């Protein structure tokens, strides 16, 4: 009731017909002759920009396979693919309002988000940990009492740190970067002694830093998060196509090749190798694909 009232209110406010949503993403793609992929600029190595500022990465490759499947299904070989850079602030509204059809970034699949959007089967699992300077000798969260700890505004890591703080009675001085690069810069310039974030992102930032050997990823795992490609909710036809494509990749072992290419070999722009083997949970999720939210792990 509440929901219908406010929806009506919003539409009256805009005094324009709602964007035709009932017809589904596939119809929208067929009608417009194009599909828009949401991309991230520095989510290594899932979705980021190369030296030509073109989007590349593990999730971009997977999305391109989905686009191929869309082309085949709609018999539209000349489908136009557009990229739209998204941030963690605008990615969900942009998927909801039809700007982005498929978000190929690094979005955690959790219950709160499932109210707004749908997710493809989990294609990556990240552990939230911390990066420190080796010289600091920090090995565990317990050593951070009273020290400045960096994280990025508007990410789930903030909540995790707070929850942990409460549970363990540790008192961090939280400092916030507006994006991961800024947060890492805080660690680099000693504004913070640790940076709490998804471990794949930390590995990417360290690998591209000025002195990769000065940093280490240490400490307990604050959270295990399933990362997945995001699409609009309530669109079973498109969801099935996406699910089938991703499951197909997993069944045929193609996902392992993609994984090896992005996590276990040198990658652009600076040809560094993240050396980031698959976690046990990810291996399991490739065996038996699932789009269950983080809360179920």
């Amino acid at each position, binding site marked *: 009731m*509440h929901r219908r009232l406010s*929806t009506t209110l919003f539409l009256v406010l805009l005094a324009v017909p709602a964007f035709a949503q009932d017809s589904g993403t596939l119809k929208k793609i067929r009608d417009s002759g194009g599909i828009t992929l949401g991309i991230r600029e520095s989510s290594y190595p899932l979705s980021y920009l190369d030296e030509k500022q073109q989007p590349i990465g593990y999730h971009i490759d997977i999305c391109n396979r989905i686009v191929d499947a869309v082309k085949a299904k709609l018999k539209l070989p000349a489908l136009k693919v557009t990229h739209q850079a998204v941030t963690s*602030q605008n990615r969900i*509204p942009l998927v909801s309002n039809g700007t982005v059809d498929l978000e190929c970034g690094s979005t955690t699949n959790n219950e709160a988000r499932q*109210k707004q959007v749908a997710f493809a089967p989990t294609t990556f699992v990240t552990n939230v940990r911390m990066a420190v300077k080796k010289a600091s000798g920090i090995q565990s969260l317990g050593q951070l009492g009273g020290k*400045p700890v960096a994280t990025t505004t*508007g990410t789930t890591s903030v909540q995790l740190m707070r929850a942990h703080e409460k549970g363990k009675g540790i008192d961090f001085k939280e400092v916030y970067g507006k994006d991961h690069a*800024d947060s890492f810069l805080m660690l680099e310039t*000693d504004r913070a002694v640790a940076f709490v974030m998804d471990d794949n992102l930390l590995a990417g930032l360290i690998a591209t830093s000025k002195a990769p050997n000065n940093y280490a990823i240490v400490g307990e795992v604050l959270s295990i998060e399933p990362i997945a490609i995001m699409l609009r909710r309530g669109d079973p036809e498109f969801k099935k196509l996406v699910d089938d494509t991703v499951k197909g990749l997993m069944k045929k072992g193609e996902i392992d090749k993609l994984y090896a290419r992005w996590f276990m070999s040198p990658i652009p722009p600076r040809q560094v190798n993240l050396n980031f083997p698959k976690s046990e949970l990810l291996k399991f999720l490739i065996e038996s694909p699932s789009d269950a939210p983080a809360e179920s792990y």
Partner: protein
Amino acid sequence: MNYHWNWGVFGEQVKAGEETYLDWLITGLGWTLAVSLAAWLLALLIGIAVGALRTAPSRPIALLGTAWVELFRNIPLLVQMFLWFFVVPEFLPPDWGLWVKQEMPAKEFATAALCLGFFTSARVAEQVRAGIGSLPRGQRDAALALGLTLPQAYRHVILPQALRIVIPPLTSEFMNVFKNSSIAFAIGVMELTFQARQMQEDSEQGIETYLAVTLLYFICAFTANRGMAWIEARTRVPGLIARTS
């Protein structure tokens, strides 16, 4: 639109804590007001001084004022914020630098207020200079002829008139301070925009969050506008053409 509305979200508890989202927004509003007002105070003090310097008869002093204005008004605020936060401390002696970066109390707040204050001071200085320029030359000459020194002439004759003249354009700048303070989130000040980003991530109710925050900014700027209008009405110089609006 395929959006799950939830207007009750503001009363809900945040994920990791006892407070509600409304508490977050109120904290954010507090920091927005603190940064804006501190920056405005700084901008007024420096801006009036620099604006007056720019009209000084001594060329080097006037140039110094000009240099200040050009430096701070010709670089986007977002870039200045970044420079103050990440670059300036690197040029301090290492011990001081480390103190500024780790120990200084309310370091994000201080950096943001300083940066926004300097940025705004350049614009205030321009208005003050224009205000002084619009006064008839006779005012200064008469003051000097009465035996006042130049600083006295500024203090008692020129500035009191010029400041009243520039209240309308300063109103705009005062409103701008509140709006520009939203950029302070970039260095981690926990003001409104920052809280909006947190709340959006925590609750996944982005549109409700941003509507509420937009409304709060609107109220701030509107209050600033009315406040300045009140001051303007109280301090109007009799005999000059009053600008209405």
